[in-house]
């Protein structure tokens, strides 16, 4: 990753890595542990315009379906197609190969106020 990238974390257990106005979004290691083995990931259509808080992706474990939300306004640029045949990538590599989608941000300042890694880790540790 280049030096200009920055990673944010949300209370909903998503991570957002931003480089040059494009955000890559996934769920955290903690979230994948809580969900257990994923069996299906429903991904959005590239090109779709989304608003902050929209449910964009559904991750399904053996037992439950959970929504993943857009952390900011923008346009979906690409989705992680590898997940259609191998949803378990989210379990084995939640914060890297198991990324969910990328989006062009309309207003990067919407991410201000999100947590950095250590702040997020503190909330997780406190349960």
């Amino acid at each position, binding site marked *: 990753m280049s030096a200009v990238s920055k990673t944010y974390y949300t209370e909903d257990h998503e991570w957002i890595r931003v480089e040059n106005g494009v955000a890559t979004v996934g769920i955290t290691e903690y979230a994948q542990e809580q969900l*257990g*083995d994923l*069996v*299906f990931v429903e991904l959005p259509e590239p090109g779709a315009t989304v608003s902050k808080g929209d449910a964009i992706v*559904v991750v399904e*474990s*053996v*037992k439950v*379906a959970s929504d993943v939300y857009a952390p900011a306004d923008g346009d979906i640029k690409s989705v992680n197609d590898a997940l259609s045949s191998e*949803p378990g990538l989210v379990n084995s590599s939640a914060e890297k190969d198991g990324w969910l989608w990328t989006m062009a941000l309309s207003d990067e300042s919407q991410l201000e106020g999100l947590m950095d890694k250590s702040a997020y880790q503190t909330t997780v540790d406190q349960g």
Partner: protein
Amino acid sequence: MSDTGPLRELPLRHMHEEAGARFAPFAGWSMPVSYSLGVMKEHLHTREQAGLFDISHMRLIRISGPDAATLVARASPLEAESQAIGASKYTFLLNEDAGIIDDLIVTRLAADRFMVVANASRAAIDEAQLRCLASGLNVQIEPLDRVFLALQGPQAAEVMKDSGIETHGLTFMHGLETGDGWFLTRSGYTGEDGFEIALPASDAETLAGKLLADERVEWIGLAARDSLRLEAGLCLYGNDLDEQTDPASAGLVWAIPKPLRGGGGYAGAEKLAEIISAGPRKKRVGLQPEGRQPVRDGATLTDPNGKAIGRVTSGGFGPSVGHPVAMGYVPPDLAEPGTAVQADVRGKPVAMKIVKLPFITKRSKG
């Protein structure tokens, strides 16, 4: 069942915690949902070796006294008077409309004694129904406080033997009282061979420790219990069965002795005979999504033209079959295996077909 009161804790909670359990509320209890293995491996482990389940939320109710068989015959469509001592039967409590109040396993312990295993969420209602039907009879109805463990899987019988736990030659769907407060049956809810053991909390840790010392045994949580029973085509009360559903619709007439299908002395007999004779208006079926996407309970089923025809009552992923699995109810003319239907999942249609149940080849015989 209360969703608001304090949750009841399992007597063996500390053992579950040591095994890395995640807990969630279920029917008023804080129950282990999965352990460090994870649902998928827990499920597969049970089908390959042996899984140990803490099912102490299930309620044991002992019926004893000179009129015990009379009460069972009033409560359930069973030939209780002639039920062999040691035989376990899958049965129901029915309301006057033949709706299922609960599904049960009833074991005859002695001429004058039966054991009922009831669902946690329905136990209080079951007990009230039994007490109501017991009016004028000489019987005692005792809910028992027990730890209840299930050992399930193809290695279960070998594990019991190697752990030195006497199984008294029990065959599937048989049970007995084996000692001071112990109740052992060969039965289960996974489609596998196995045992269910109820015993006083003071004996439970030793027994669980003995079983877990065998490397073929792992703790298995409620999540895998659900996927195991769904693959085996077994009903979950509250999902696949409720008071608006009768045994004929649920495809459970096999559990009713032939002479009692046309009526009898049990609650709901008259209405059930009518339904069996006229044919049910809906039928429980197996459902398989065409793709990889699970279709879960509550999803509306439609015909290929989008007309609503029924509902999915249980659904998820089947780790042993490697694809999503579901059950639901459709009109009888659409219940034929191979029939194409659709489920509405978050506003999008998912193609499914009706399939035969169970999804796996059951190894439990009974």
